[in-house]
């Protein structure tokens, strides 16, 4: 018998298929979105030759890692921001009386298949970035290029879940969550040295956004980190992602316990 979660995902696919044209339009317009994120960063390099000591091709590697990690997280977990609707309308009740985990159900019931092509674009841009940089490939670096986008995706996924969980306490949280998710993506698209002071300390290191794209990119390129972290710092990204995921799991569980439901 099919796995219950697979069945949920397949049902979602069939629901989409009942609105075929609008699905295709969505799919294509989403590709544009991802491409624009990358272009925005490249424009900056048109203005100055280097940004905080990073060349155009190095910058491209950072933004491509950030963009792919985000696309992956947005595709799998991003729709958790629909939790607001589920909580406000009380639809979460229906989810909670089924014999499956609440979070996987929410994700699979709304899997944003229209965002699928973003992944293709993300992988493409990363391939270009790896090509234009002269990377001295070692087995560790090969592993890192696979691990880094996945760890980044886990990290962004955790941010998505944490932002969404706020809804359990504060239904009118509105777009506060987007400040951290989309804001976080934009933060990671640039080399961390462009930021300074407490802002950099807080977002890049205390919250861990620096380990999504910047540190892995520095490690891949084998260049010195202007901020002085050791060369292997890029390999910390899975650890940072795991810590973020644990925090997200904690927030989510506490949130479910705190869920108030609505009306009858």
């Amino acid at each position, binding site marked *: 018998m099919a796995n219950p979660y697979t069945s949920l995902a397949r049902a979602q696919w*069939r*629901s989409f298929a009942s609105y075929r044209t609008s699905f295709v339009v969505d799919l294509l317009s989403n590709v544009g979105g991802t491409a624009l994120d990358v272009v925005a960063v490249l424009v900056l390099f048109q203005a100055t030759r280097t940004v905080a000591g990073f060349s155009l091709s190095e910058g491209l590697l950072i933004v491509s890692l950030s963009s792919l990690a985000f696309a992956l997280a947005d595709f799998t977990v991003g729709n958790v921001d629909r939790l607001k609707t589920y909580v406000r309308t009380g639809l979460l*009740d229906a989810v909670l*009386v089924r*014999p499956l985990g609440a979070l996987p159900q929410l994700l699979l019931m709304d899997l944003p298949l229209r965002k699928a092509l973003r992944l293709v674009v993300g992988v493409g841009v990363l391939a270009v970035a790896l090509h234009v940089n002269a990377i001295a490939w070692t087995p560790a670096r090969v592993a890192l290029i696979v691990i880094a986008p996945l760890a980044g995706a886990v990290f962004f996924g955790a941010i998505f879940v944490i932002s969404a969980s706020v809804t359990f306490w504060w239904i009118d949280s509105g777009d506060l969550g987007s400040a951290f998710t989309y804001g976080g993506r934009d933060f990671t698209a640039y080399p961390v040295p462009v930021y300074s002071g407490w802002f950099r300390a807080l977002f890049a290191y205390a919250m861990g956004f620096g380990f999504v794209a910047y540190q892995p990119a520095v490690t891949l390129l084998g260049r010195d980190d202007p901020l002085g972290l050791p060369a292997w710092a890029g390999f910390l990204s899975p650890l940072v992602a795991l810590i973020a995921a644990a925090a997200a799991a904690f927030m989510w569980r506490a949130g479910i316990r*705190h*869920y108030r439901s609505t009306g*009858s």
Partner: protein
Amino acid sequence: MTLISMKGLRKDFTVRVKAGRLRREKRTVSAVDGIDLSIEQGEMVGYIGPNGAGKSTTLKMLTGVLTPSAGEVSVCGLRPVPQRTRLALRIGVVFGQRSQLWWDLPLRDSFSLLRHIYRVPPQEHAARLKRCRSLLDLDDFLDTPVRQLSLGQRMRGELTAALLHGPSVLFLDEPTIGLDVVSKQAVRSFLAELGAGGDLTLVLTTHDLADIERLCRRLVVIDHGRVVHDGTIEALHDRYGSRRRLVVDLDAPLPPGFVVPGAELLSTEADGHRAVFELTSSSAGAVVGALPALRDLSLVEPDIEDVVARLYRTV
């Protein structure tokens, strides 16, 4: 066997109310305020109360949706919130206003999805579906997307969806809300048929007391989060002194000051040609025998709506 038990069950909500221009005050409201109940296997219990009495909140604590603020609750020997997914396999839930079905898919697809979600062996699933199809006349709209179903059809689908995994307890939150007379009757007779087996335990909330009269031997009335009545409908009538009424039409007006033992004159109409008595003893015959020039009569059974309305007002 006790299937559902609640001891001192409470659910408090904090609400913020405006106090002054910017200040907001926190206030704690108890939606459920210390409920003790136990329900045996095979019982059909009607759970009623005015709007905001805490009916749905109780049901949500029993199904693992809401975490109780205090007290103990156990359903099928499980603690609903910590053992939510295990409990889900043992219970069926129909929330009148929350669908379990997939909006864009045909009803049939929702049913087969639920088979995977609950991991029901195909033969069992097929047998239960077959029974529901014949009892609820599903065949006409089994291939219609749920979004195109009428409310009555959808509710029949929801009932089926809640039963396909063979639950031992069925929770129904206002299952007949918004349905037309025919659909209401279809739902009621279906539930009566299910209950007749004696295995299924059924807890239903409703505002339509006809549901209760038709289905439930036991009636639990709650108000302000507390149980104010727990017993049969007859016990409720006894407790609130509901009496049968005798309406008589007379050829000649009732003489002023007319008294008959075993009945109280409530009112007269049409210049005394019609009189309404409330029977205080059980025999209507004695009253009828004492009446002069009787033309016609009718006997009105006590109305549960009246009793419950009185109950809501007094607590």
